């Protein structure tokens, strides 16, 4: 892994990991922790929507695409309909052009292919203006 890992603890950013896969949940949670970003984890799109309905809000949402009950596309659309303006980054192994387009059009701000790494996450943060790479 090249380059220094930025510490964004002072920026007090918050994030929500939305993924049904336990291994991915652990990884993404730890990746965000490592960057100093406080984060919660939920298992599907419905839980992400419920979290926001209960009054929670996040600067960044890492949204998986394929999940049971409510998938990432449906959840992204619903959150945008609710007026949620958080930055949403889609993260998925499904990277075919059509699927990516549909996911982006649901209301994403950015997209990254899984598996996420520190450098991919830093790239998301840079693209969404949370962090300026030097």
């Amino acid at each position, binding site marked *: *892994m090249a380059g220094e890992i930025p510490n964004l603890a002072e920026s007090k950013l918050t994030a929500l990991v939305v993924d049904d*896969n*336990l*291994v*991915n949940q*652990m*990884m993404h949670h*730890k*990746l965000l*922790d*490592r960057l100093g970003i406080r984060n919660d984890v939920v298992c599907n799109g419905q839980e992400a929507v419920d979290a926001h309905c209960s009054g929670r809000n996040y600067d960044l949402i890492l949204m998986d695409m*394929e999940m049971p009950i409510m998938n990432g596309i449906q959840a992204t659309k619903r959150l945008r309909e609710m007026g949620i303006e958080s930055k949403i980054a889609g993260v998925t*192994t499904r990277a075919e052009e059509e699927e990516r387009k549909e996911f982006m059009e649901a209301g994403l701000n950015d997209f990254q292919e*899984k*598996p996420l*790494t*520190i450098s991919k996450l830093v790239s998301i943060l840079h693209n969404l203006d949370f962090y300026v790479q030097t």
Partner: protein
Amino acid sequence: MGKFMQGYLDEQFMELEELQDDANPNFVEEVAASYFKDSARLINNIDQALRRGPLDFNRLDSYMHQFKGSSTSIGASKVKTECTMFREYCRAGNAEGCLRTFQELKKEHATLRKKLEHYFQVQASDQLCVINQLQNMC
């Protein structure tokens, strides 16, 4: 990671190791434990689905999508390759191909499990050596 694991784990495993720190000294082992718990469940589901006839290729593909996802995240390259092949056979509606590939996948998965168990044992043993050496120096 060493030659022992080469071919079985790719650079994604090294990403996991980079995330391990003093706050979570057993992070990699915990992720591996979750992976094997989850993959055991998926193997069981796929086993049962393969015994039912006619095969539900959509369901099988869905299980294997999950399996491939986890395997990719932990860096299990050989298992991931078998998952990809299995999914191709699903899409082609090739039952024999699915069955054959699934047997290979289970073998690779079992081998990876043994290798990782050994790897973590060696790591724990190395750490104990370091602690003993430090204690002897005091």
